Structure formats: C-alpha cells, structure tokens
C-alpha cells in the first residue's frame, strides 16, 4: 500500500470511529437507545391506558389488522409515557411522528419505549410495516393538551 492509500484508509477509519463514538455516547450517555429484549411484561390481548401519577402514564398498544387499540389517547403536556406494544396477528410497525419512538409490533413479543411529551399538539402514529390489504388505513394519535 502506498502513502496515499494509507492516508485514505486512516481517514476513513477515523471518521467512522468518531461517528461510532458519538452514537455510543448518545445511546449510553444521553439515553437515546433502541428497544431491547424485555421479559417483565408478557404479551397482552387488549390495549389500555394506565395513569400512575398526574403526568406518568403507561399505554399498552395492541396492533391488529388494521387498527391500534387504544385509539386516540389524550394526555397532558409534560407527561412521561411508557409505551408497551404487541401484535394480535401479523407484524406491524409503530412510529410516533416527531419523536424517536419507532417500534415493531411482533406477535409473541413486547416492545417497549419511554417518551416524554413536552410540546402540546397532535402526535400521529402510523403503522409502517406492511400488514395486509388495509395497511394504509392503520393509524392513530396521541393528543397532548
């Protein structure tokens, strides 16, 4: 390898190293992490909203062909929400627009994410994994007051 090649390789690896370092920092230092394997909540068969404190909520989302349970949810601004998600049939997607909540609903498993809604507004949730003929109708929302 000549010098130019070594320089190119070194530059490439350095850049990638910096990127990777930053994303590890975001994940472990700033808690922007991806879903993990959870075993404390078992797959459920109905959706529900549980309020633990004035601004602490837990929502169990059940994805079905082709709607979400519960449908529209209303919560006060500043709430922290623990979201649990499972599917009653095939694989679905779950993306809350404008947040980092991006999950897959896989039957037999439970996905989890925590999100804090500071700004009031309408947060649209779309199913973004193909789940059959009605997939384009599958959406719901969280209204933050």
């Amino acid at each position, binding site marked *: 390898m000549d010098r130019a090649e070594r320089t*190119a*390789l070194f530059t490439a690896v350095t850049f990638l190293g910096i990127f990777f370092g930053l994303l590890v920092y975001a994940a472990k230092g700033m808690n922007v992490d991806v879903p993990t394997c959870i075993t404390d909540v078992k797959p459920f068969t109905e959706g529900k909203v549980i309020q633990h404190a004035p601004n602490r909520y837990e929502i169990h989302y059940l994805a079905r062909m082709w709607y979400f349970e519960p449908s529209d949810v209303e919560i006060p601004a500043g709430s922290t929400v623990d979201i649990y998600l499972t599917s009653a049939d*095939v694989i679905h997607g779950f993306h809350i627009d404008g947040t980092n909540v*991006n*999950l897959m609903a896989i039957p037999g*498993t439970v996905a989890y994410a925590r999100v804090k809604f500071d700004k009031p507004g309408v947060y*649209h949730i779309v*199913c973004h994994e193909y789940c059959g003929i009605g*997939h*384009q109708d599958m959406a719901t929302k969280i209204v933050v007051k």
Partner: protein
Amino acid sequence: MRVDSSIRTVIVGEIVFAIVLLIFGIYHGLMQVLYRAGVIKSMSFLGIEYYQGLTLHGVINVIVFTTIVIVALGNAVFLYYLQKPLRPAVQWTSFIMMVVGTLMAAWAMFTGKANVLYTFYPPLVAHWTFYVGAALLLVGSVIPLFFDWLPNYVSWRRENPDKKVPLAVYGMLINHIMWVIMLVPVVIEVLFQLLPLSLGLVQEVNPSLARTLFWAFGHPVVYFWLLPAYVMLYTVLPKVVTGDGKLYSDGAARLVFILFLIFSFPVGLHHQFTEPGITNNYKLIHSLFTFGVAVPSMLTAFTVAASLEYSIKSKYPELKNSLFYWWTKIPYISLEGDKWLVSYFMAGLFLFFVGGVTGIINASYNMNLVVHNTSFVPGHFHTTVGGLVTLVFLGMSLYLVSKLTGKDIKFKGLAVIAPWLWWQGMLIFEYAMSVAGIHGFPRRTNTGLTYLNPDSPLYRPEWVGYAELSVFAGVLIVIGFVLWAISFFGTLLSSPVREPVLELPSAEAYHDEKMPALQKLTPWVVFSSLLFLVSYIPPLYDVTKRGVFFDSPGYNDKSPVPITKPPASSKSE
C-alpha cells in the same frame, strides 16, 4: 475468445430473461410512485393490487434480476479470464432451474397468492409455489460455482502455481462463496418455517426467529449484488475510460474483497434495531461491524478515483499537477469505441456516493429510529442497488450481448444518454423520499388512498410535495430505462456483423503487489463463517428462548383470521 454456441446461448439467454422480467419490475416502480402520490387513487390498477405490484417490484428487481445477471457475469468472467470451457450440461441445468423457479414464483405473485413483499415476513404466508420457486432460483444460481467455476479455478491454480489468480476471478469467486454462506440461514427459514406453514404441515411459526434468519441473509445479499459491480469498476472502468488506463492498485482491490468476506455477515441486526426480543447490546455490536463493512467501500472509492486520475493523467500529461481539473476530462458522454460504458459507471458512482452516506445513517444504531421503515430507506437503496448496481448491470448486459452475438450496438446515442437520465431521476427520487422519510412518510404503503388523500381523515398535507416530486423523478428514470431498452433490443434484434466472441475490457494494475496472505481463500472463508456463527448465537438465543413468548399461526393479507389454525383453538392462547 470464441465461445461454444451452447454456452453463448445460455449467457445471452440469462441476460435477456432477466431484462424481460425487469421491464415488469420497472413498470411497477412507476405505478408505485403514482399510487403513493395519489395520482392513482385506488387499491388496484389493471387487475394488480398495490401490494401485489410492490411484491413484484421487489422480487423481480432485487431477487430475480440481480441473481440471474450475476450468474451470467460470473460465467463470462470465469470463462474469459481462466480460458477454460464451461460445461453445457451444468449451465443448462442452472439456467433451466432459475427459469422454472422464477416462473413458479411469478405465477404465485401474478395470481395474488403471494402478496407478502420480497421480505416475506411471517406470519403472513404465501402459496407454497412462491417459496419453492424462490428456492429453485437460488439453488440454480449456485450450481455453476460448484460444478463449473470451482473445478476450473482449482485446475487453473494447479497449472499456474506461482501466478496470482486474475482479479476479476478473485472477486467473483469470493462473491459466490459469500452467496453460498448467506443462503444457509434463509434456506433454513424457508425449509423449516415457511414452507411447512404454507403447506399446512405445522400450524405456527416464530416470526422473530424468521426475521432474524432472513436478515442474516438479507444484509449480505446487498453485497452479493454490489461485488460484481465492484469487479467491473476495478477491471472495466479504468480500461475503457481512456482506452488503455490502469487500475491503481491490485492489492487494495483484493483487500477490499477480503474485508467484504469478513464483515458482510455479522451485521444483519442493523435491520432489526427497532425490534423487540433482541438485547440492544447485540444490536450495537452488529452496528459496529456495519461500520466495519463501510471501510472496504471507502477504500474502493479511493482506488476507483485514483485509477481514474492515473488513467486520465497518463493520457493528458499536461494535467499532471491538476488537483480537480482532470475530472472534467473523463468521457462522461462519448460514443467512441467502448467509452459509452463510462456513462454507466460514472452515473452509478455518483449515485453510490449518496447511497453510502445514507447507508451510514441507517447503520447508526439510534439514528435508525428516525428513519426506520420510512421512505428514507427506499430512497437510500435506489441509489445503491437501483443506482450503481443496476446501471453497471445494464451497461455490462448491453456490452456482453453485443459481443456474444457479434452485433454492433444500435442507437448508441440513446445508450449514452440513458444512464444520465436515470441518474438525474434517481437523485431527485432519493431527495424526495429521504426528506419525506425524515418527516415520517412511511414506506410500503398505498399512501394515495389515505395519507395523501385530501378526503381522508388521515390526510397529511406535509407529505404531498415530496410524493409529487417523486412522480416526476420516477418518470425521468423510466424514460432513461426506455432509451436503454431501445438500444438493447435494437442491438439484440439486428443482424450480426462479425464473429461472436467473449471479450471483457480488463485494466492492468499500476501497483501490483504480491500480498501472499490474501491469495489463499480457505482460511478467510473459515474465519468469516465462524465470525458469522458467533455473532448470531446471542440474538438467536434471544429470539428462541428469552424474548418470544409464543409462536403465531399464519395469515393471508386479506383477513385478520388465521388461515393455518382453526380460530377456536387460537383463542386459548
């Protein structure tokens, strides 16, 4: 070199068969942008549903078209560089299996019995002919490796003990060995999970396990598409750019192939970042390896640019000290000799640059939360597989067919313009899809019916502009493809003007080091397979033992009632 006419028929047949199918694939690409923007506001058009068309688009373009063209290119490379005849019996067996497999899967898809998209995630199930067809296609594609290429390679090595095997052979061989390794998980998924489910032999499968096995194949497969394009970038592009250019470094090119062999496999979890059931630290490790697999592509960027610079500067010595000006001397649009091919390579490379950047974004673990399953992702891969890979394959297909049939390239002007229209279209497409994706525009969705329909309660006006832009882009790409097709079929149907031969432009190396550590492939193959296995033990443990509580019955796309299990018994879960 002259080629046995039976072998010629197979290679040309493979290319033409793949291209004829690609026409259907591209047609559905155009339909999709129209549906998504709400230009077609309907569930189906001409009897084909949106998701059925999307299945056809995905399966044809990236499973059938790529695989068959790669086998054809492999045949050409092994034949031309080793100068050892291919065996007609082997070649015909492989070709016929691929055709029969494709037709079986096509029957299921065209009749709507397999609206499962090209990733066929259970518990959606397709008709069994879809899986058997796909399996036949894949098995057919590995036959030449075992019965033609490897034996020829081994005897070439024996006859030339102290020569390096030609770079093109080296790259293609690694590529097809990788292909065999990556097929193992998907074959397990199809044979032991999906086929039994669709035949009704079992009532339930584990969808998380199926996805994990699928992506253990689904990531490396993108390198299976890419590496043949890289082989051509290393050997063909430097040669044709000036007529006698050189590859900057042979050693660097070989190192790149070995790095792909090592890093392509332990990375599949980057498609599953947002999934439950898999511990996030395993995902982080796969993310790290994914960054590793970016290195060989960056090294390729260097080597290809250096080869271009070296080749251009040796033709124009007055540019010796130019830093950037030599870029303007590349024959981007030239009808002289084989220089028309340069358009395909350069347009592809410019797209691939964008694809590389967006790919690193996808791979960046938590950043994936912003883009996963949005239109950002199709934006990305239309510049990689739909960009560099397809353009190189279209260019090489035209080139090989003209040589192998002894015909002149017809409508060469159109053939030179085509990749630039394609390039422009894909660039706009990528922009529209990616930016919309960052705003949450989902992929795999007939958005024209709801999200982009002003009459629907789900209407999302902020996505409209991007979807309309992608219609414009789609039309440009299709025009580019049509120009290419006019030239291709014009050439194919014209009468021969010279003797049919097999020829591949092949650049010599400027730096030609020995690098003995890279010449023996077996240790690298063993190492890479072990790494593959080890990197998958923890996630497989998760999706079989820890994170998945029960298996699921199969469904079809039309109804929420399971089809593989009586509804009564499914209640007891």
